[in-house]
């Protein structure tokens, strides 16, 4: 099939970017979206033009590297699917496609479709862990965890850190990302000793990094390729209130 592609090109963080248009003549429906970008890049190189930079690695929807906004939607139109697993059978002959990077001040554009997401790492560094030194753990079955809690914790822990939630949010809020980690650990007995400190510290880092607030648009949940629920945001808010109160 034939497609018209408008791709965001931006040389570096400090330079201005713009859309560049390319016509793709023979796109196979069995290609993934990123394989379609690969083809575009091969053609660009052959014509002496620099290829489009984009982040990608596992191409199995789990590493969280990839992420572009496709026709206004992070990761494109298919529910619970990352851009690397989106296949071109989702598009029709003659369609126009606009591809751009995540837009958020906490995710500055590095080049073309790549953004800097180290702010997410810093949120985790501020408390997204359980402090257990290697070698100090008790036997794994000495900490029973009800299956229901373990499953709920897993649902939150499934976050791949891609940043689609931020890109989808009109406020560029990182509440879903932060809430997923706060909840994953807060739901488990292992996470209790640091529960209050964790939520206070992670929320404050999230604010310092320049992410916006949550005003219940629920776009993050829609865009999340791992279908993480905004229930976790409510859970985090409650934890935050309790922790703030206890702190006095």
């Amino acid at each position, binding site marked *: 099939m034939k497609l018209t592609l408008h791709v965001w090109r931006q040389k*570096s963080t400090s330079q201005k970017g713009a859309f560049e248009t390319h016509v793709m003549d023979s796109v*196979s429906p*069995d*290609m993934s979206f990123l*394989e379609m970008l*690969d*083809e575009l890049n*091969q053609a660009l*190189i*052959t014509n002496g033009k*620099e*290829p489009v*930079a984009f*982040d*990608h*690695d*596992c*191409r199995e*929807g*789990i*590493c*969280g*590297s990839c992420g572009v906004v496709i026709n206004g939607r992070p990761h494109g139109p*298919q529910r619970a*699917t990352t851009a690397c*697993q*989106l*296949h071109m*059978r989702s598009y029709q002959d003659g369609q126009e496609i606009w591809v751009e990077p995540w837009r958020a001040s906490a995710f500055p554009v*590095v080049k073309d479709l*790549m953004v800097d*997401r*180290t702010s997410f*790492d810093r949120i*985790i*560094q*501020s408390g*997204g*862990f359980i402090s*257990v030194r*290697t*070698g100090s753990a*008790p*036997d*794994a*079955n000495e*900490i*029973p965890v*009800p*299956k229901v809690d*373990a499953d709920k*914790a*897993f649902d939150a*822990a*499934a976050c791949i*850190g891609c940043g689609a939630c931020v890109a989808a949010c009109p406020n560029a809020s990182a509440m879903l990302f932060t809430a997923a980690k706060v909840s*994953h*650990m807060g739901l488990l007995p*292992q*996470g209790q000793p640091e529960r209050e400190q964790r939520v206070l510290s992670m929320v404050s880092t999230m604010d310092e990094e320049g992410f916006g607030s949550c005003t219940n648009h629920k776009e993050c949940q829609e865009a999340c390729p791992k279908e993480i629920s905004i229930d976790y945001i409510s859970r985090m808010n409650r934890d935050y209130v309790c922790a703030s109160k206890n702190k006095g």
Partner: protein
Amino acid sequence: MELNSKIPSGPIQDKWDSHKFNLKLINPANKRKYQVIVVGSGLAGASAAATLAELGYDVKCFCFQDSPRRAHSIAAQGGINAAKNYQNDGDSIYRLFYDTVKGGDFRSREANVYRLAQISVNIIDQAAAQGVPFAREYGGMLANRSFGGAQVSRTFYARGQTGQQLLLGAYSALSRMIAAGKVKMYPRTEMLDLVMVDGKARGIVTRDLTTGKIESHAGHAVVMATGGYSTVFYLSTNAMGCNVTANWRAHRKGAAFANPCYTQIHPTCIPVSGDHQSKLTLMSESLRNDGRIWVPKKKGDTRAAKDIPENERDYYLERLYPSFGNLAPRDLASRRAKDMCDLGQGVGATGLGVYLDFSDAMKRDGEATISEKYGNLFDMYERITGENPYRQPMRIFPAPHYTMGGLWVDYNLMSTIPGLHVLGEANFSDHGANRLGASALMQGLADGYFVIPYTIGDYLAREELKDVSPSDSEFIETEKQVRQKIDRLLSIDGTRTVDSFHRELGRIMWNHCGMARTDKGLKEALVKIPELRDEFWNNVRVLGEGSDLNQSLEKAGRVADFLEFAELMCHDALTRAESCGGHFREEHQTEDGEAKRNDEEYSHVSAWEFTGVGSTPKLHKENLEFENVKLATRSYK
């Protein structure tokens, strides 16, 4: 080059404990004076960096991804083995040891494998304490499932995302140490060479992938946890960025490369759909717990699966290996799938596929149960193929997945270069000629959490290491070489893209050094690879600049190294004139097509020494002694 494996003496069950006691220690206050460079942030790298930092070492950690959380360990699906015997089904450290040695087709070191089995139990404890959300029973205890090559249920799992959850556990430990200022993290930074001072590994040269800046980092020891090289085949289940560069650069500086031909071709991957394909997707081996593998009995049968009656189906794994059935080890399952397709019984448009069918399991346990166990895998399959595996069987075909070969290391995980330690998939150690499912996560974390933290201290305590800095001539010289290579790549300005070379190399390797190898084919590859390498250096087109984010340049450097490494792989495969595990030489098989090992001549590790590009590498042998497991023909019948 001397290969001293440093295996401790004494009974196998006491070796590690007595070795730990004999290792020299460094006073807690002195540890901070030692800088350790860790390259890679996967299970092995992240766990090592975090643990070394907890102990007090001054750690720098590097990864080429934009975050340490994205290393390819994250994609491991099925699980992690541990000899906990929580199922009361007869498991033990000794049984896990035995299964792993046998599964590796008697080509691994007994002492290393025994230690791995011992440590396996600590890993589960550590991960559970970190909050890794393993699957649980209703009583709150940990659940297990069974995996290929074992008759006990010892695999711990977190749905089909065990690698992700374990890596996020290690990443959280690493993040804690970054926050504490004990680890300095360098994301989007690629190691491009190793720096040697007085014959010891004392640092690395890196390229900042965002700014293109070439920089040196000095330390007292280097730990490489840089993963495997399956992408030498171009199409594999590995992430696009996986590469052999760090390992190859170290090899060129004197680190022996062991058993490079031992590659694992995983039986359950989604078949290739066309020439645009950039990578292959694995469907977890755990699916073989409930899925039945079959092909039509009739050649070229084009009927839909549901129209083929039961008596016209060949459940060939159940037929050939009645005691292990669909859970036969990976090498066998892959080869038999290839046989069936070679016989013309393959399915799908290309004929390169076999069915993995869940209809019996769904009848037995209900669709909901199957969905709970494998839902995410079924969804992934449907996204990629457009077919619904609840309604029709999956189509699967083998694909390169893991490399058992890697840099040679001794019992302390140190390579033949003093001070260079190699962990996880990057070393050759514990899996012999074939890795059992759910053992990669176990080994990566064993090396990082529980082996290197002990053994590195011994090295640092014993060696007199003078102070070095990036302004020393050795660093400046290495940086110069790195820059020259980059400039050369950018100046060729030929007509072919880097990818087109990588694809062509991949085809050569898949055809001649893939699932089945022959003397003739390997010799052919050894002619074709240098030709392709010459063309690459004369005709590759890499646009853009070195002082900028340049993904073509990154790839070009990696492909250039693959074009040298591929030759070594073929030399190794050619020299090993026997079949064992993932290495199948067509000339060496039994009448029923099983691998025919030759213990008389090949019961050794092949460790290769670099002698120059295009020149035949030099072989060194480490003989394998089997004192506890009796060498036997590996049978799963």
